[in-house]
């Protein structure tokens, strides 16, 4: 990979997914943090933190992935944002992409899907 991807933010309200996604990233040498909803993702950026990659779940309490992605783009956050969700309705996926995603992968996330996301990040 050409671009050094060293940090990621996992945005997911499910503790099982948080743990798996962090391990996937860890095995690829990427340091990660987790937050439990879209509002926390926005707040962590307001605090001044930035990440090379954001793995964004769709359905979360308080603020969902679509709202959070839109808000982050409005704030000028240029990180790669990959939507990761079990929701398979095409309209929802389109709305998620329109909010500012760079990629979308259906859960469950695997090594192959994550590598595919990282390759897209390199081409960005």
């Amino acid at each position, binding site marked *: 990979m050409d671009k050094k991807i060293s940090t990621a933010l996992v945005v997911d309200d*499910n503790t099982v997914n948080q743990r*798996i996604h962090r391990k996937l990233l*860890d095995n690829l040498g990427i340091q990660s943090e987790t937050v439990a909803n879209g509002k926390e993702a926005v707040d962590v950026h307001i605090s001044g933190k930035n990440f090379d990659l954001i793995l964004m779940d769709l*359905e979360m309490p308080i603020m969902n992935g679509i709202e959070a992605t839109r808000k982050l783009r409005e704030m000028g956050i240029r990180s790669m944002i990959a939507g990761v969700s*079990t929701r398979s309705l095409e309209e929802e996926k389109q709305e998620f992409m329109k909010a500012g995603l760079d990629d979308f992968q259906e859960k469950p996330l695997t090594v192959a899907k994550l590598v595919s996301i990282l390759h897209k990040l390199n081409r960005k």
Partner: protein
Amino acid sequence: MDVVSQLQRQFVDYTTSLYREGFVDDQYTQLQKLQDESSPDFVVEVVTLFFEDCEKLINNMARALEQQQGVDFKQVDASVHQLKGSSSSIGAMRVKNVCVAFRPCCEAQNREGCLRCLQQVTHEYSVLKNKLQTLFRLEQQIVAAGGSIPVIE
């Protein structure tokens, strides 16, 4: 056959049966592949999180469905969605499949249907928990006897 070989044989047969009977799918294999020296108990850790998640979500669904006046089907659906997500992530195929069947009952606001699905999901979770705990015990026995855990492709 020595003790280690016997235990390893038992482990292979038991694991194979879990896949054959649809208790776990390829995603469970993916989870095992993530385990390494830096996280030697990763699978047990994630499965334990999953069990805790299941119990919490099943209790939430049961409480919501108990309400005689006005079941909050959105809340039940939200719990089913969560459970579908985590069961899919660890490869708990039967649990996931019940969740897939559960959601239309929530959408149709069918209380009886939801109660039947809740019963099924509780059953599948309980059986899976027993099966995986048996598997983990076998692993511990193999290691305690000085053997290594067979890798099943």
